[in-house]
Each structure stands twice: as C-alpha cells, then as structure tokens.
C-alpha cells in the first residue's frame, strides 16, 4: 500500500478535527478526499506529511511510519498545501531552482516529469510568483512539489479559487502524472471533481462516511433524482419544501435536485402543484444521481 491509515484521531483544543480515520491508497492510485470546509481534510494531510502528530492511530506513507520515519518521508513525498505557499518575491524560475536545490536535485534531472506543466508557465519564468494568476500559481506549485520525483504526491485543495478551465487542465495533468506511476492523494470541496478520481473518501465533521469508486458510490444511491427548473429558483425551492411528498431538495447548477419520499414520483401532479403556486417555465426531468446527491444524503443523516 502506498498510504495506509489506521484509526487516526486528532483533537485541537478540545475540538475533534479528525476521528477514527482508516483507509488505504494503492500504489499509483488517484485517491480523492471529498468534503466541505472544516471536514478535517487539511488536518489529515498534515498528519500524513508528518507536519502534525495524531493523538491516536498509526499511518504509513510509502512504507514508512509518519512518526518514526518522518525524516525519510519528508524526502520522498511531494506536498502542495492548500494555501499558495511559494515565495512571492521570487520569480517562477527562482522558486523552481530553490526547491530543486533543497531537495538535492536539479531542474534538468527531473525535467521530464514536469515538462508538460512547466512548458505552460515557462513564458513567465522571469515573473515574480506573487504576480501570477491563480491557475499559473497552482501549476508552479505543482512543479515545485514534483521537482524531486516524489513517490507520493499530496495535494490539499489544489483547485480552490482556480477558474473552471484551469481546474480542468489541472485534473488532466494529475491523470498524466498518475500514468507515470505516482500515487496521488488529493482533496477538494468540489463534488464534480470527485468523479475524476479512482476512489474517493467522503468526509464530513472529521469522519469518513463512505469510501469507494465514484461510480459505485453513485450506483448505491437508492432514490431517483429529478432536476427541476423554473423561472424563479429561489421561490421554487421554497414551494417544493412545502410539497407533502418531498424527501430532499437543494440547488444544483441552474436547476434544483429533488427526491420524492414515495418510490414513484407523479410528475404531472408535481407540475400542477408548482403551477398552482404561481411558478412558470417549469421543467421536470429524471437525471443521474451525482456524488453531490450522495453527499447531501449522507450529510442529512
């Protein structure tokens, strides 16, 4: 196993940050930790990167114990913290050179690994890192985390605050890195990114609620999900909340996702109900459940 955690718990000033976490990541896997802010993702990452000590439990990264072999782990993992943590007053090139030097390597030696990513930021190599756009910063940070050819890569919310196009590019890069045999543990608050991982752990309030491949997680979802659209989305949600057979409703993109408490939804009946409540431009259609639906369902429990 590349990463394995066994009943890890950590408490901050009396508040439990992560509780009883156990899971394993296979070599070469792209494993996602999905959860909202405050779920405990960052704490988990810091325990695995030897930055924090867990109160109880054990964890092993690349075959090494995070407490005993912390020095060895620090040499062989790549870590990209949630906050942009490069030197803003150093240029792109200087940052990269610096990280190469402190990891005892050179830009040239591992150029192959970062080539594709670096080529995109190379035109700006003399620009100070602080003056790069969000997407560029992430690419540079990824390059810096990869410069020493780590066995395991830890990416804590790498796409937060990055525009959708750059996010997509970023995930394509992760896929290519995975193909080169690097194990990747990535966290994200964006549910749509979960589908891009091999396996995901759904996390909330310091606990893991479910671990499986995104496909299986969605398949397990027991209810039919309807997407409903209307002129006024806000009013639509309020009206639906008063519908007697409602099971759940929450906004999803330009629509709302609705599940019914009965096994079969009577679409015309619901349409009538909505019209009666003064809504116009109504659209009701069956849709595939997503990770987000699963997550909302689990969070409800």
């Amino acid at each position: 196993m590349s990463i394995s955690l066994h009943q890890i718990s950590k408490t901050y000033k009396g508040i439990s940050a992560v509780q009883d976490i156990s899971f394993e990541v296979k070599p070469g896997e792209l494993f996602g930790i999905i959860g909202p802010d405050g779920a405990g993702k960052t704490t988990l990452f810091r325990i695995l990167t030897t930055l924090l000590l867990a109160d109880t439990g054990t964890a092993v990264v690349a075959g090494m114990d995070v407490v005993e072999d912390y020095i060895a782990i620090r040499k062989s993992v790549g870590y990209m913290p949630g906050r942009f943590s490069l030197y803003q007053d150093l240029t792109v090139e200087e940052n990269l050179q610096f990280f190469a030097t402190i990891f005892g390597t050179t830009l040239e030696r591992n150029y192959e690994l970062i080539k594709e990513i670096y080529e995109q930021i190379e035109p700006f190599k003399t620009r100070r890192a602080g003056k790069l756009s969000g997407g560029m910063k992430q690419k540079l940070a990824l390059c810096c985390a990869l410069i020493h050819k780590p066995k395991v890569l830890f990416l804590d919310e790498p796409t937060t605050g990055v525009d959708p196009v750059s996010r997509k590019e970023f995930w394509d890069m992760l896929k290519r890195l995975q193909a080169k045999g690097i194990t990747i543990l990535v966290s994200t608050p964006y549910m749509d990114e979960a589908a891009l991982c091999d396996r995901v752990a759904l996390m909330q309030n310091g606990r893991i609620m479910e671990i499986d491949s995104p496909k299986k997680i969605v398949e397990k979802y027991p209810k039919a999900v309807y997407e409903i659209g209307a002129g006024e989305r806000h009013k639509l949600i309020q009206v639906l909340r008063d519908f007697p057979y409602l099971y759940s409703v929450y906004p999803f993109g330009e629509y709302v996702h609705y599940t019914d408490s009965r096994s079969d939804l009577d679409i015309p009946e619901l349409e009538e109900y909505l019209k009666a409540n003064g809504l116009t431009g109504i659209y009701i259609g069956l849709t595939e459940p997503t990770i987000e639906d699963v997550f909302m369902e689990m969070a409800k429990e």
Partner: protein
Amino acid sequence: MKRFIGFVKKEFYHIYRDKRSLFILFGMPIAQILLFGFAITNEINKVEIAILDQAKDATTIEIINKMATSKYFSINRYLAAESEVEGVFKEGKVKAVINFEKDFGEKMVKRGQATIQLVADATDPNTANSITNYILSIVQQYNQSINLHQVGGPQVLTQTHMAFNPELKSVFMFVPGVMTIILMLVSAMMTSISIAKEKELGTMEILLVSPLKPFQVILGKVVPYILLSIINAIIIVLLSIFIFKMPVQGSLILLGAESVLFILTSLSLGILISTIAKTQQTAMMISLMGLMLPVILLSGFIFPIGSMPLPLQIISNIIPAKWFILIIKGIMLKGVGMAFIWKETIILIGMTLFFIGISTYKYKIRLE
C-alpha cells in the same frame, strides 16, 4: 552544503527585493548615528543667558565679560528689575539669569564677600544643572584669580581632567549606544521577522516537508544577517571616526571580534523570538518592546546604571546590551585589551549559548 547555499541565496533575494527592509537595514544606522551625533546632545554650547546687574560696577562687568567670552554662553539680554525674570523665562529663549546684588563691588571690598543669585530654567533639569555648573566654575575661576593677587589664608585648588573624553563630547557616549541598538535591531528583529514570515506565508510548511534540517533553515536565515550586521558595524565605526572624530584607542580587531560576538548574541535572541512569534507583526512587536526599550533604558546607554534603583540595576544585568556597551566603551575610549573585558565577554558568550539552547529546545520539527 549545496542545499544550504541555495537557501542562503534565496534569503539574499528576499532581502534585496524588499526595498523597505533594505532601507531599514542601511538607512537607519546612518540616520541614527547622525541624529544622535548632531542633534541630540547635552553639551552646553552658546546657551543664552540674561544678566540682571543691579550694581553695574567694575567687578560685575569683569565677571560678565568672562561669561560672555566663554564659548558656553551668549549674553543678549540685560534686565532692569527682578520682576522681569519670570517673563524672560516664559519667552523660553533664555535658560538662566545671573543676578548681581546691589553694590556688588563695594561689598566685595568692604565685607570680603558679595552675592550672585543664579536662576535657571529647570524645565529641562539636565541642561539647568549643566548651566549652573558651568557658571559656578567661571565664578570660581574668578575667585581664584583675585585671591592670587591678594594675600589670603590657605586654600584648596581643584584641577579637573576629564579622562578619555576631555572635551566632554556626548557623541562619545552615543556612538557605543547607537551601535548596540542597531546591531541588536538588525540582527534580532530582522531574523525573527524573516523566520516569522515563512510561518505566516505558509512556506515554512513546505520547508518542513523537505530534506532541509531545522538547523539548516535557521542557519540559512542567520548567515545573511551576520554579513549585513558586520557591514553595519563597519559603517557606524567609520562614521564615528571620520565625522565625529571619535578615537578608537584599542585594537580594531578586538572591537571587530566583540562586535561579531554581540551580533551572534542578538541573532540567537532573534531566533528565540521567532520560536514564539507566529506572524511578522508579533515578531516585530516583541523585538521592539522586548529589546529596544530595555536596550535604550536599562543598558546604561542614556541613563547611568549606577543611579538606578536597585531592582533595575539587578535587571540591567540580564540585558546583553549592557555588557556590550561596557566592552565597546572600554575598547574605543579607554583602549583596554582583553584583560579588562574578559568578564563581559564571557557573559555575552554564556548568554548566546543559553539563547541557542532554548531555541533548539523550543524549535518545532512539526507545525505545532
């Protein structure tokens, strides 16, 4: 080693690109030395005094002439009545009034004594004190000079010699003090800020998850500031020699070595501060409040330690600056060698080791 050099190089980029701290680094020493040297001075020089001469005879005129020809005073005002004294002080220019009693010369001859009243503006007590001392000494000289001509009883003559600073230049006192403050500030504040900066911006997180060992990070932070502080010390010594004509009586090499020692003491203090401070702001506040004030107030730089209340005298012993000021005053002004300052040197070495010890103990290999 390559890693270490890479780290030091990065530190120099930081320092060089941050124009503001670069200005503090080199602008402050020069500004402070010039300020303390020229502007802030408690020397008496052409102080305005006023005369209230109610006798206007040969004797009083002779005394007044002596005052006027000394370089310490300038006499521009002559008052007519005692009631004017207060008004003159309120205007603020005149710092002292010399009041000769009526029939001054006549009384001198007839009774053998006459009285001068000396009124000084004591809103600034130090200056008032110095002025009265200077006037008294002029009067005394006059006394002695008339006694030489007359045959009188036996008398004690005083001969004063101001050793190590014959002209009583206050810059001689300020240069060691300013040098101490600046080395302390640059070394302790700048290092503690630069380490706190890594924590604040989150880069410490990455440095921790790297093969760099903690002592390499610390040492990498410290080396650039050792170099900069040495440059600063050299600038200060050159300024004091060439602009203020301050002599360096002792060995320049010893002075240099002791300065490096004090720089190391300050740097270790800076590292200690950085183990506590999480943000640049806190690091700066701790350095300013915890270092600047004690250095200025308790090190003997401005206020003599001997005249402090006992508790403060005891506290002053734990301030590294106190010992360094003793050392450089000894070397620069008295020209003493190691034989006279070994005790202070050992204390500084001890303090340095102590600070480094606690910092190593407190240094975190993890985030909390």
